[in-house]
């Protein structure tokens, strides 16, 4: 047998996992294939860790409590139909661009349906219909009937942060845009909230709530939008919200307009530009036929605050916002007075004299309707006796006085004792886990210093003093014999994609944080992660350093959105306030789950393989340069030899030696990579290439056919022993094929021969019985004479290991 090698480099075509293709590299949800100028820029692996610096933007605003809106999650490719191109105008035939959800900002290439073959990409600036696109630059003239492919990958998160500068009568909310494809943060800007209570506020919880309104259709005449099947007034559409026409998908809107009045359920007036008050802008002048699709974005910010004057704290809501309000110079949102549905800051009080005055976080429930969506605030009346306040922030606001109303207040529980002090900030998260005591039960999870508590939402009733469902005690990963319990838990977040809790600590003295199932069995937490490396990731850091989420002995706050975890460090200086995006959901513990996070190679052909030997791959052992390198997290390799074409085969994990000797040889093999991300530095690895070594059914590489000592007359076949085995010779196998028909005529082995095996160690001078002694000199030969062989046939002899 000869040894063969098949290699795969991560430079070719790719498909997302949901579009599995065994001829291409398959990428899990958070897996990307990257390219660049140097060889180390061409790799595949989880999305890169990205860093933003809130305190180093043009207006420095230290920001914490990240909350994310997944604004666009488009992926895949679209190549149905053909096109004709004239300058920037693209006309489709058989295409359905709008219906398929192609976003504005996507790329299109012509002449092929294979993205890997596209040489020039153009950006889509507008999508007028299923068959009409406008490009950013001219693509010249392309005849009709030309193939095309659209790269729909357009993953955009809006990341909002709360102001953590010194308490003041106003608070700022910052917005970053994060592109998952390129792992880049871009600062959008900020808004300033003017609270109706003009004493110093400290934000203890913040949520940015986003919803899309697409009911009915519209027609537009000048600045008046007339709806059909709409109920805008009853559904409390707010002044200031932005509206787009032509699609119900915000990613397909080219030009946004802004609602400056809601006249009725079927009448809205709009303006061209965004204004701080939501009114007073340039009146629109459009003409759009009735029956047109549209979308209104309802964006509002909720903040829970404590206040220098205690009874000025509580819940505040700012509706009527739009993404365009977030500007580098800042947009100031006024405090409300007496009018509902104005673009202003409202005080959603629980009573005329607020009792929800020691809030410790803010948790949002799912939207039930346009007039009902609940939020919950844990009231820390005393360190160990919390209560829960419930509000409906979409309800009609009445009796508003100086911006304050009690209309949203629903109920407050009584207090109930807990063990450990209730965390004072960003505490509380609503979610439904799929495991443990809370499986399938919508619950509010919150942290004390030593426990995570669960409260079934159904238990949150007026005056209840028995609302707690159960609690999970802190048992570090590996048990307390491996890590000491921190006794300093501070926050809990739910990572829906992996069905786990992310539990953060104060970081004091470098204590770490956890990711785990929720259990009441005192089982150790599943993962411990992060470390205090002391590295400063501010803009002036050495370019040889690599930013990574590290504790810096401080509190971190997290938000997880579809596998990507945003980690903010709660500092107020440029050295200590950073925001990281880390693909924790791609961790190998969860890579084979409901959302695949594997990197899968194409099918690698191993023709005539008779034995697999080993798999090898190259990856990045570290990131950064010189003295500032940081090790990457490990990666592991799996294989399969069946079910490749239809993605039905199961995977087997290889050990770190890559040994494949026990694997039955086949005509092809496929590999998959899984990456550790939940680790010490949380820097995911990067794989450059992979290869498999195997032996095929050509003559064994230790022997060479011998013309001299082969003898057709005696039907004898000989080989020179050319390469030593380094030990006892293994069982050899001789197969004689009809060279014309390919049929197997004789199949014999040295272990139990039917024919005769012989050996000579003196250049054929003397032949003796065959033995398994290794090669001793250059004059060693073996020969085989079959027991019987027909005459007058053309024979091909094959000597291999058995």
């Amino acid at each position, binding site marked *: 047998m000869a040894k063969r090698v098949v290699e795969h480099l991560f430079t070719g075509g790719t498909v997302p996992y949901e579009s599995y293709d065994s001829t291409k590299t398959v990428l899990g949800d958070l897996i990307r294939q990257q390219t660049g100028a140097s060889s180390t820029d061409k790799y595949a692996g989880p999305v890169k860790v990205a860093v933003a610096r809130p305190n180093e933007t043009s207006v420095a605003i230290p920001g914490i409590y990240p909350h994310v809106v997944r604004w666009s999650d488009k992926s895949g490719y679209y190549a149905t139909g053909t096109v004709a191109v004239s300058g920037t105008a693209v006309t489709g035939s058989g295409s359905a661009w709008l219906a398929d959800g192609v976003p504005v900002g996507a790329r299109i290439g012509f002449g092929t349906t294979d993205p890997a073959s596209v040489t020039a990409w153009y950006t889509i600036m507008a999508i007028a219909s299923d068959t009409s696109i406008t490009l950013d630059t001219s693509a010249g003239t392309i005849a009709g009937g030309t193939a095309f492919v659209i790269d729909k990958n357009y993953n955009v998160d809006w990341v909002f942060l709360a102001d953590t*500068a*010194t308490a003041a009568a*106003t608070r700022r909310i910052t917005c970053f845009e994060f592109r998952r494809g390129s792992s880049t943060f871009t600062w959008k800007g900020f808004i300033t909230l003017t609270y109706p209570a003009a004493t110093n506020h400290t934000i203890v919880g913040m949520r940015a709530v986003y919803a899309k309104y697409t009911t009915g259709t519209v027609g537009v005449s000048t600045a008046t939008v007339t709806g059909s099947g709409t109920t805008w007034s009853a559904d409390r559409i707010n002044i200031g919200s932005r509206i787009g026409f032509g699609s119900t998908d915000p990613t397909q809107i080219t030009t946004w307009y802004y609602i400056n009045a809601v006249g009725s359920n079927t009448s809205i007036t709009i303006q061209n530009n965004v*204004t701080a008050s939501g009114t007073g802008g340039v009146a629109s002048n459009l003409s759009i036929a009735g029956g047109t699709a549209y979308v209104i974005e309802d964006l509002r910010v909720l903040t829970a605050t404590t206040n220098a004057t205690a009874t000025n704290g509580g819940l505040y809501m700012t509706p009527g916002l739009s993404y365009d309000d977030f500007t580098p110079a800042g947009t100031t949102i006024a405090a*409300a007075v007496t009018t509902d549905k104005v673009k202003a800051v409202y005080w959603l009080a629980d009573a005329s004299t607020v009792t929800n005055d020691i809030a410790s976080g803010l948790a949002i429930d799912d939207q039930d309707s346009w007039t009902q969506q609940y939020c919950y605030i844990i009231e820390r009346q005393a360190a160990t006796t919390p209560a829960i306040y419930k509000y409906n922030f979409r309800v009609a606001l009445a009796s508003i006085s100086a911006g304050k109303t009690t209309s949203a207040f629903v109920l407050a529980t009584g207090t109930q004792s807990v063990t450990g002090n209730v965390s004072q900030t960003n505490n509380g998260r609503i979610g439904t886990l799929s495991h443990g005591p809370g499986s399938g039960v919508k619950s509010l999870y919150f942290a004390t210093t030593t426990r995570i508590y669960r409260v079934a939402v159904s238990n949150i009733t007026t005056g209840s003093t028995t609302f707690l469902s159960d609690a999970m005690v802190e048992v570090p990963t590996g048990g307390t014999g491996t890590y000491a319990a921190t006794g300093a838990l501070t926050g809990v977040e739910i990572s829906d994609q992996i069905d786990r809790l992310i539990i953060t600590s104060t970081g004091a003295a470098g204590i770490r944080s956890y990711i785990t199932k929720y259990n009441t069995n005192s089982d150790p937490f599943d993962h411990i992660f992060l470390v205090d490396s002391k590295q400063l990731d501010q803009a002036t850091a050495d370019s040889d350093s690599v930013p990574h989420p590290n504790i810096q002995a401080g509190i971190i706050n997290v938000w997880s959105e579809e596998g990507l975890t945003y980690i903010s460090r709660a500092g*107020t200086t440029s050295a200590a306030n950073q925001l990281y995006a880390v693909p924790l959901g791609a961790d190998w513990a969860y890579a084979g789950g409901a959302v695949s996070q594997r990197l899968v190679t194409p099918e690698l052909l191993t023709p005539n393989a008779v034995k697999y030997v080993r798999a090898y791959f190259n990856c990045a052992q570290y990131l950064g340069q010189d003295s500032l390198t940081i090790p990457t997290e490990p990666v592991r390799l799996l294989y399969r030899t069946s079910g490749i074409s239809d993605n039905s085969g199961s995977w087997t994990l290889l050990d770190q030696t890559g040994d494949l000797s026990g694997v039955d040889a086949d005509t092809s093999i496929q590999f998959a990579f899984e990456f550790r991300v939940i680790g010490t530095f949380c820097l995911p690895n990067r794989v450059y290439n992979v290869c498999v070594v195997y032996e095929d059914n050509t003559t064994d590489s230790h022997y060479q056919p011998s013309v001299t000592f082969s003898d057709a007359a005696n039907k004898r076949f000989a080989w020179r022993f050319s390469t030593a085995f380094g030990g006892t010779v293994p069982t050899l196998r001789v197969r004689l094929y009809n060279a014309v028909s390919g049929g197997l005529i004789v199949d014999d082995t040295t272990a139990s021969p039917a024919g005769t095996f012989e050996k000579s160690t003196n250049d054929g001078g003397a032949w003796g019985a065959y033995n398994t002694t290794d090669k001793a000199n250059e004059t060693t030969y073996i020969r085989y004479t079959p027991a019987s062989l027909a005459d007058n046939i053309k024979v091909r002899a094959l000597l291999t290991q058995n």
Partner: protein
Amino acid sequence: MIEIKRKDRIPDDRSLVVAHDGGKYADTDLILCADAGNPDEPTMQLQAQYIKYGPLVYQFNTPEELGAAIFALDPDSTHDAVMLYKEEASRKKARETGTLEPENPVEAPDKTEPEPEQKEEEEETIEEPVREAEEPPVEEPAEPVGESEEPLEPEAPAPEEGAVLGEASDEPSVPEAPPLIEESAFDPIEGGELPDAPLDAAVDISTTTTE
């Protein structure tokens, strides 16, 4: 304090006007505002400082930075941050020019007056120098210095309406500070210790032959 006038337009959003009664307001007081088309129906509240200076007031994290920014826009501003900025600037200038003086200087408790010089007496005979024992000075507990609640420097007077703090210039003008009182030239002496050197003037011990 910031002066607001009714129906003034909000600089940062010209569609809004002040709906509140005019007057002087604290920097962060909420002022009723209304749509310019319906000025008598207030729909929102904005801080007085925002109405006066726009979003600038929310772009800084410290009062010192804010004060500097507002001062650059309006040197005559009476915003609290500007007053702080002016204080800091004047203090810095005085420190740099060596004229920083306490407002109410307190004498050091161990201050001593220098002894007057003694004439040398011409003597024909040689006398052995006599080291007279001196009683050690009684140590008095040192009083803390600089704990006055009053600032070390006179505050810049708040201008009356229409008044200005001197002529307009790039640097704030402040009243001259009183001259510094020189500290004592002698180090304090701990109780119980004799001074290392006699306090009396040295006596000539050279030999002079008699005539």
